[in-house]
């Protein structure tokens, strides 16, 4: 690594904000921290005395638990605030919530919210570091990073790979972070989905748009499918999940178009039989469970780096 380089980020709000060198460092750090989770005593004292608060305004199982495990394995004190218990149900504004949390001197806030950009708003009103754990349809940077880590682990190098992302690109913050992350690291990113689920000008984010799922998957090293998030849709976007599965679902037949050693990814939770054939989800090409394992390592790396580790 360049001797001039330093990791200067106080907050992790998006992959857009991170340079290639930042991403390299995060992935290298995650690789080295991954081993801690395999020990019989899964704990290091690195973040002893640090306070990490998870503030989630949207439901989450995986991401929240993953962050909490990451923080605990590094000996930080962790606290969770869920929507139901938060003071926002009493009408408190996000800025007031931030000011009150700040008064209790946390070091890191892990933050999820349904409004895009709200982690940035929070970061302007609090001294603690803010890690975006998913904001609206904007970004989910730790997910993007764990996906990069998983691909690098399986393929050696991201540069030059062909990554196909299939499904609801418009409403997926995971897709957004992955398009930015993979193209930044030199991969060719191809997206495909019904036109109703493709955002405007997605090419300018760095993705090519394929006309058919077959075209997108052809020659791919990585095939990533996304959850069809019917809970978020108030638009007439799709006639039915059945039709979606028929025309846009990833099946063994479609996977034959990909490279023989292609891997299958999914950020979870999966709608089995909708966006992904169950046989593939559990098959030997699937790295879905590796993604979850790597999530802990990436989140340990993020906590470590924003708290000034080197």
């Amino acid at each position, binding site marked *: 690594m360049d001797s001039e380089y330093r990791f200067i980020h106080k907050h992790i709000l998006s992959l*857009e904000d991170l340079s290639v060198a930042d991403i390299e460092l995060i992935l290298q750090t995650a690789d080295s921290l991954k081993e801690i989770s395999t020990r019989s005593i899964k704990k290091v004292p690195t973040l002893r005395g640090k306070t990490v608060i998870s503030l989630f305004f949207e439901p989450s199982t995986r991401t929240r638990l993953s962050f909490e495990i990451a923080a605990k394995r590094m000996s930080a004190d962790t606290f969770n605030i869920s929507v139901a218990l938060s003071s926002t149900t009493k009408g408190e504004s996000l800025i007031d919530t931030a000011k009150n949390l700040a008064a209790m001197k946390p070091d890191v806030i892990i933050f999820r919210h349904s*409004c*895009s*950009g709200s982690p940035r*708003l929070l970061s302007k009103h609090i001294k603690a570091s803010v890690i975006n754990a998913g904001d609206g*349809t904007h970004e989910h940077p730790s997910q993007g990073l764990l996906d990069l880590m998983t691909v690098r682990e399986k393929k050696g190098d991201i540069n030059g790979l062909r990554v196909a992302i299939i499904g609801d690109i418009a409403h997926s913050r995971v897709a957004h972070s992955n398009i930015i992350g993979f193209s930044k690291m030199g991969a060719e990113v191809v997206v495909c989905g019904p036109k109703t689920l493709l955002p*405007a000008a997605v090419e300018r*984010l760095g993705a090519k748009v394929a006309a058919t799922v077959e075209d997108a998957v052809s020659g791919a090293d990585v095939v990533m499918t996304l959850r069809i998030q019917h809970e978020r849709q108030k638009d007439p976007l799709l006639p039915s999940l059945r039709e979606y599965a028929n025309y846009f679902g990833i099946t063994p037949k479609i996977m034959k178009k990909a490279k023989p050693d292609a891997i299958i990814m999914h950020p979870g939770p999966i709608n089995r039989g909708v966006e992904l054939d169950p046989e593939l989800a559990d098959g030997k090409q699937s790295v879905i469970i590796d993604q979850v394992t790597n999530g802990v390592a990436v989140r340990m790396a993020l906590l470590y780096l924003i708290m000034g580790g080197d």
Partner: protein
Amino acid sequence: MVESVNNTPILLVNGRIIDPANGIDQNGSLLLENGRVSRLFFGKKLSAPRGTRKFDVGGKWVIPGLIDMHVHLREPGEEYKETIASGTRAAAAGGFTAVACMPNTKPFNDSWAVTAQILSKARNCSAKVYPVGAISKFGRGETLAEYGEMKEAGVVAISDDGCPVENSQLMRRALEYSSHFKLLVISHSEEKTLSHLGVMNEGYQSTRLGLRGIPRVAEEIMIYRDLSLAEYTGQPIHIAHVSTRESVSLIRRAKERGCKITAETAPHYFTLTDEAVDSYDTMAKMNPPLRSPDDIAAIKEGLADGTLDVIATDHAPHSTLDKDLEFDLAANGIIGLETAVPLALNLVREGTIDATRFVELLSSNPARLLGVEGGTLRVGGPADVVVIDPDKDFVYTEDQVVSKSKNSPFLDWHMRGKAVLTIKDGEITYSDS
């Protein structure tokens, strides 16, 4: 800030007098007496009555008081954002002698009683207030409001601004029924099923920021409907806050074939693009949303060639309670009265429009469309005059904002050109000293 001078005559000496209604653009002096324009002098030595207040306005423009046909004064109901008194003070500071206030107050101005209340509060304020009444009762788009009674109480036009009329039959009936009372229908043209939940222009920036987009067609489709209805009924219609290239083009073609359509745009639509939203800046959140450089180019063409008739500010005061929020939750709109002059002067400096057209867009045309006095410096007309120093440099800081709300994307901008003396009915309502 009404500086009462008890009808002391005012003499403005040696300014550039621009009055398109009378084909005047030359240096001269203007005498105001008893609230009226009393004399115009060109190159002649003049004798003013005793006690006249004399202002040397050499190098400055002397033009009819500006008229903003699209503002929100928030009173009654949201006085924490703006009052009629504070909003008209902001108007005077921006060079405006009159404003037309939209009906989306609380309660909605859909009756003579609300109109009368607004007008009673507007007495002795720093600018003339012309209420715009509602098209539909409660602004719900279901039944016609009582145009006759509202007209008698003082409304000058009707609009459901902020609550676009989705029901085409109601819009048709509004155009037909309002004709009896000679009230201009002002349309906030927005197809709500397309703009649904959108918070900014749909395009690369909305994708990048993960914010739900408002497609340009949401505006264009509704303008097409509105001009079709105007043509079919033979009634005039005025399109508020035009923001896209295709909207300008639709209006241009409709005018060419004789449709009685007029239109306005706001300074932010020819000054800012959706890149202003960049870091979720809620000061760049408005409806219609900020668009692209190409739209700006089209709006400038429309202002220059007469397709767009008026520059109105859509002055929309909001407090920090409504703006210091997540972008999705923040209110739409910005204040505009105090920044319209320098932003419109940019168009003159870059050669898009000339000084005469500036006066038409900000004074003569709105007066004509609303059927109100002013918009000219004719002798005998009201002494509504503004002196503009086109070269005055200033930084627009939060401290100088006169409006009760400070929601402007132009804070801390270096501006050039401003109103330095505003006179309404012969009384000084603003003086920059």
